[in-house]
């Protein structure tokens, strides 16, 4: 089981790094935001795995169930998902304005227009 657990975490880290790489290396602003989302989602997986118990039911009380998984990470991640979508919305709004005032959403183009960006 522990081997499987480690395998889980390794994939989460892979996803995290794929997201982070997308954020840092893409020049397109929309792509950056997608990357941010991927990055954050993989962190959410990590949290939920922290609260997972083998054979534990979802934390909704039911007859005859004694083992529940940990509700606290779920609560935290609910909040974090909301934060993520809020950031996404503001980021996309900024992207629209950047497109309207610079005519491009490619970081390279923006940099060419104004080296200080």
């Amino acid at each position, binding site marked *: 089981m522990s081997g499987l657990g480690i395998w889980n975490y390794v994939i989460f880290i892979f996803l995290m790094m794929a997201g982070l790489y997308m954020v840092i290396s893409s020049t397109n602003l929309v792509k950056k935001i997608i990357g941010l989302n991927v990055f954050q989602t993989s962190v959410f997986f990590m949290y939920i795995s922290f609260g997972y118990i083998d054979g534990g039911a*979802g934390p*909704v009380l039911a007859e005859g169930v004694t083992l529940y998984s940990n509700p606290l990470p779920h609560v935290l991640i*609910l909040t974090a998902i*909301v934060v993520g979508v809020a950031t996404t*919305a503001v980021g*996309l*709004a900024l992207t*629209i304005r950047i497109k309207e005032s610079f005519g491009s959403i490619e970081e390279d183009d923006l940099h060419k227009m104004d080296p200080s960006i």
Partner: protein
Amino acid sequence: MNDHLILRVVGKFLIPYVMLFGLYVQFHGDFGPGGGFQAGVIFASGFVIYTLLFGLRSTQQIVSEGFLRVISASGVLIYAGVGVASMLMGGEFLNYNVLAANPIAGQHIGIMVIEFGVGLTVASTMTLLLMMFAERGLPS
């Protein structure tokens, strides 16, 4: 989407059920998965479908942006208001126990009202977000 007649008909038919489902999720959140946030998003998707099928202007005739802003702010105020009420009634901020004679009843009232506040803010803000994004996309 005038040329997608079938889509329009089916979509229009589904919208009330989607919103009903949103209400179900809102008030069933105590017993199963769901709650104010999810309900708000689902309720907002009713407006999303309408906007997609019939255009932004039609949606704006149903709900104005100003109205949505009021709702969005009032959700926050309702939530914080529960906290203030519990402070005024002698408990800590957001201590629902003091809201009723019996702590359990107080918790029920508190959770119900704040979930309602969450639902209001989320539903209105999500609709508002979509409307603002769609507005920018229309040819001016």
